[in-house]
């Protein structure tokens, strides 16, 4: 146990060194011309390009477009997935029938539906949000089922003893007990929704961060491409990191792993 405080810090230091070293290496390779400027610009220039994009605000509309669509897709998949998961949990027979379909969902590339959504919704927000929600929803369904399964029976019995009605039992007992797993579901649904939306923007969209990256690629405008790419990566890592942190804290508080 005494080693616990020592090891992570040492691993943390090495990890920082590895990351910094990798970036420095990349910088050196780009500056010395080993990596062609048309292939990649040095990391410091990527950061400069990102700063320029943020400071000038020239792509604010695109950034807002992607962020708003992603938020809408995440909200849809979280709410829809929770409701569907709760409904399936209440119907064991349907749930067992659906099990193989749910577990095979992420093994098939659902993204091939995007062209279809384009035909149904037209090029624009609708198709992108639908794509994001479609990719994210099943992660939420699966984790809602998982969470409701793991509510300790003793809590439900206590609720019965206290004569709680179904609604209060759900609100006061089941939901809080399942919360850590619901957060896992939200984290995964968010990650999958982003993939769906950015992939959609790459392929066909009217605006968005992915659209700007794709344009930058096509125009050999590497500053825009790498600047927007860096922005996207930072956004994704911040959201994912925050959700992962929250998830870990809840799991710890509930004393289960």
């Amino acid at each position: 146990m005494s080693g616990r405080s020592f090891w992570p810090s040492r691993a943390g230091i090495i990890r920082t060194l590895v990351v910094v070293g990798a970036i420095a290496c990349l910088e050196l390779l780009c500056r010395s011309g080993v990596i062609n400027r048309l292939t990649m610009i040095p990391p410091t220039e990527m950061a400069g390009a990102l700063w320029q994009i943020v400071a000038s605000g020239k792509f604010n509309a695109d950034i807002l477009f992607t962020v708003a669509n992603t938020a809408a897709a995440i909200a849809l998949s979280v709410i829809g997935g929770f409701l569907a998961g709760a409904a399936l949990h209440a119907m064991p027979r349907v749930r067992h029938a659906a099990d193989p379909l749910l577990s095979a969902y992420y093994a098939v590339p659902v993204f091939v539906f995007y062209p279809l959504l384009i035909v149904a919704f037209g090029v624009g927000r609708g198709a992108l949000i639908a794509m994001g929600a479609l990719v994210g929803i099943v992660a939420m369904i699966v984790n809602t089922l998982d969470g409701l399964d793991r509510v300790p029976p003793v809590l439900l019995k206590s609720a019965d003893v206290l004569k709680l009605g179904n609604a209060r039992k759900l609100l006061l007992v089941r939901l809080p007990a399942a919360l850590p797993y619901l957060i896992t579901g939200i984290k995964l649904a968010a990650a999958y929704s982003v993939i769906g939306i950015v992939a959609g923007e790459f392929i066909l969209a009217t605006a968005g961060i992915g659209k700007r990256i794709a344009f930058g690629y096509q125009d050999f405008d590497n500053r825009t491409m790498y600047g927007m790419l860096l922005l996207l990566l930072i956004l994704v890592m911040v959201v994912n990191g925050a959700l992962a942190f929250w998830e870990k804290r809840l799991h710890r508080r509930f004393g289960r792993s």
Partner: protein
Amino acid sequence: MGEAAASPFWQVVKTRQLDTVLLLLCLGLGWELVYVLVGADVAPSPMTTLERAGGLLQTANFWKDAASTGRAFGLACAIGITSGILIGLLLGFSRLASEVADPMLGTIYSIPKITLYPIILLMFGLSLSAKVAFGVIHGVFPVIIATMSALRNVAPIHRRTAQVLGLTPAATVATSLVPAALPEIFSGIRIGVAVTLLGTLLAEMFASASGLGFALIRAMELHTIVDIFALALLIFTAAAILNGSLLALERRLRGHG
């Protein structure tokens, strides 16, 4: 047959499978309903789609596309799985190395790889290697992570027994660690294969001149909706069969372990 039906285990399996088939039929009916409501402009009927899928299977063009996707997918799987296992073994052996690498791999795994595709394209050009590289960066991380965690989860008794027997490190890996870790590594491989297929298809959809992903985009541009449905159906079926067989193999591995 009568005796098999009497065994409760088989009865459960059969009811479940029957329920799944029923659910699939319900989904088919729902699809038919959508077709009746919105018309063939947006959604063709299931029967038309099946006929078109059957028709596609008899065209040379479809098989050319399928072969192109298959080649990229096969190469990407081979490279991704081999290097994933090797890197995972290397990192998994040292406690420090796995502690350093674990959060980094988790972060890389969680970023949407689609954002990196323009970089891959700039590096490899519009070629088979770009598709393969994109498939590999999807598939390699789940394999590395699973291999690392599998090695960590091997019961210490296996290592100690190898020590007592005086096995060389190579012999320890080959006869003790790998067999013990195999089932968990294999589930990483199964996930890796699924996301490699997604990566390969995404690459073809974003920028490529051949393959099933390209055929999907072409169908979208030509507005031949029945082709999109038929292609999606064929890809889904192939992916589901692949996933099902890998899952069966994994169950067998676990059964022996």
